[in-house]
């Protein structure tokens, strides 16, 4: 295991381009300056990390690639695949016109993209200092790739932390669909700190779906930074199921006129899981639009957090921004927090937000029972129905069925065990 210190950093820097080496050194300074986040900070409220990055380290060598799970298997028709195992880019398979590989191989200026600021938090600083390999996917201008690209990010070594750097660039008027899986084996305590960066060029259409599938002892602390250009569309899908902690710190900026972003999907926590969503959608350009639509469920002692800030800057006239977060709390010991927020610095906007936290509603339950459907079955139908709207809006249909099954199975098992 390689500690997160100067010695490890210089080892990574040997043979690295000088710009990258000095960026790593600056990030290390930030890393040393910053403390581990605590629940006292607004942006980390409700989150008890229970580990310290200083006590962890990089794996010395990557472990074996994990076999496909239900989600990976459902993505049989792929434009390309890349596997990042324990921070190392292991396999790339790509027959498409897009470029997929390390920043060098994929070309362009991907390696120089730094949307994530090192002083965001200690995890961001560590990610910028100790990222070993990166994956860049570049969709060249005017090219449309129909089948999805799959980036399978895995953490397999106990007590290690890895910092995968993932960059997706959809160039002018291109189109692509991407799925990023985050996985770790059951029983392996490890921390994944991905730095996902996406840029969507003029008129381009990109969808990126992240699927959280870490084992119950794995943690995923992701930063996702994205920049959306003129008349460009980014659809972000989320299926959050895994990890004792799964955090998505998403900050997306609508820069060009007419750009749009959608964040849609679902999360479902069980046992002691903490699912943590911190979203900021920043409208800078005029006539931009955004919609956040996330549905969540928690059972057992799981906890979810959603904070969503829609920020409309002064020049973003003609903007529309909507945010919906609905949560089912299915056990007495479970908890969901939902805090939508608007910050509007411009008059000419249409904005709205809705948020709810609560158990299954009694009237629909009574209605289904009045047709002769037993209470347990009616509850399963209602849970299924609750998530159906979110599943139906996922950017890629291939993921609908595994997402549906995962949620339904969790609730049905909890019902059998008398936990809900």
């Amino acid at each position, binding site marked *: 295991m390689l500690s997160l210190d100067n010695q490890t950093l210089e080892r990574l820097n040997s043979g690295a381009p000088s710009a990258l080496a000095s960026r790593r050194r600056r990030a290390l300074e930030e890393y040393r300056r910053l403390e581990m986040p605590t629940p006292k900070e607004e942006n980390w409220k409700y989150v008890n990390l229970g580990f310290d990055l200083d006590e962890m380290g990089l794996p010395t060598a990557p472990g074996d690639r994990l076999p496909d799970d239900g989600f990976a298997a459902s993505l049989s028709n792929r434009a390309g695949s890349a596997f990042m195992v324990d921070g190392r880019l292991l396999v790339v398979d790509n027959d498409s016109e897009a470029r997929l590989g390390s920043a060098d191989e994929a070309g362009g200026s991907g390696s120089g993209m730094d949307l994530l600021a090192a002083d965001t938090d200690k995890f961001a600083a560590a990610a910028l200092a100790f990222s070993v390999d990166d994956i860049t996917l570049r969709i060249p201008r005017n090219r449309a790739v129909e089948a999805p690209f799959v980036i399978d990010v895995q953490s397999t070594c106990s007590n290690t932390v890895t910092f995968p750097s993932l960059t997706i660039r959809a160039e002018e008027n291109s189109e692509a669909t991407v799925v990023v899986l985050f996985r770790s084996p059951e029983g392996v305590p490890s921390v994944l700190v991905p730095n996902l960066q996406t840029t969507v060029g003029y008129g381009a259409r990109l969808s990126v779906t992240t699927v959280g599938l870490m084992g119950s002892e794995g943690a995923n602390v992701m930063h996702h930074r994205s920049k959306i250009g003129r008349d460009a569309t980014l659809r972000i899908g989320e299926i959050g199921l895994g990890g004792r902690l799964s955090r998505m710190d998403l900050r997306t900026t609508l820069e060009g006129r007419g750009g749009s972003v959608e964040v849609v999907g679902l999360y479902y926590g069980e046992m002691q899981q903490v699912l943590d969503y911190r979203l900021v959608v920043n409208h800078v350009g005029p006539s931009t639009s955004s919609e956040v639509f996330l549905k969540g469920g928690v059972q057992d002692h799981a906890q979810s957090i959603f904070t969503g800030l829609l920020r409309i800057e002064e020049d973003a006239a003609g903007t529309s921004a909507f945010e919906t977060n609905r949560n089912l709390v299915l056990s007495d010991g479970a908890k969901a927090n939902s805090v939508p927020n608007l910050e509007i610095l411009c008059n000419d906007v249409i904005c709205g937000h809705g948020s*709810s936290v*609560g158990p299954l*509603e*009694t*009237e*629909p339950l*009574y*209605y*289904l*029972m*009045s*047709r*002769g*459907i*037993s*209470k347990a*079955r*009616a509850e399963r*139908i*209602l849970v*299924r*129905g*609750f*998530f*159906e*709207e979110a599943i139906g809006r996922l950017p890629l249909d291939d993921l609908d069925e595994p997402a549906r099954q995962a949620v339904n199975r969790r609730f049905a098992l909890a019902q059998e065990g008398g936990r809900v």
Partner: protein
Amino acid sequence: MGVALKVQNLRASVGSVEILRGVDLEIPFGQMHALMGPNGSGKSTLCHVLSGHPDFTAEGKAWVDGEEILDLGADQRARLGLVQAFQSPVAVPGVELEEIMQEAAEERGIDPDEADRRIAEASRRFDMGPFLGRSVNDDLSGGEKKRSEIFQISVLSPKAALLDETDSGLDIDMVRTVAAAVEEMRRPDMGVLMITHHSRILSYVIPDRVHVMMGGKIVTSGGPDLAQELEQSGYEGLRKRLGITSAGADTTPKPAFDFFTDHPFSS
């Protein structure tokens, strides 16, 4: 001939408010009874208390085909053969109408092919084809919801059907269709209680008995001419004939109705 639905001295309250104050009713198999009464008299509450809505506490007795139901859950009552067509059914987003009919059939041990056959047949009859694959009661007009409810009764084919204002909000053609369906329910293995405000449907389907409810009680019962009397002289006229002072008869608060809006607890 057996009795599809029997109710004896049924009292019910929600919180501390008593809404039903001793209802007696008996619907033999093969008969259709109409229940009329002014707004707030307790007609919908009667349906929900019999269906097992969890908000009500009930005293008294009720039987479906000889089996006591008041201690049973709403689902058990329905499987025993009591099904209500709701006046304002709640939307169940994300759950398809066809899906709940199939699930309900499965719970009753009905063969899936037989269930599909019944669904197809009832769907043709009530023109529900476009709604089978849509969320239950979601984004439906008032009339479409009524059609959906009578469609479900038709699929589930209960022993005792409670139709809560199924005829209101329908266009004239659909009133005829519903009336024909109700007429067909007058068969040896079924009894029907039809709550209605309008005597319009009673010109298509003649009830065996008409009951009038006021202030949480059935104050009088009679033949089809009772409905005609109401049409002519109104509830006020009936009160005079029966010597009921209007005060006290219908001062019942209305909490029960307010629970049955489409989105009762939406935030």
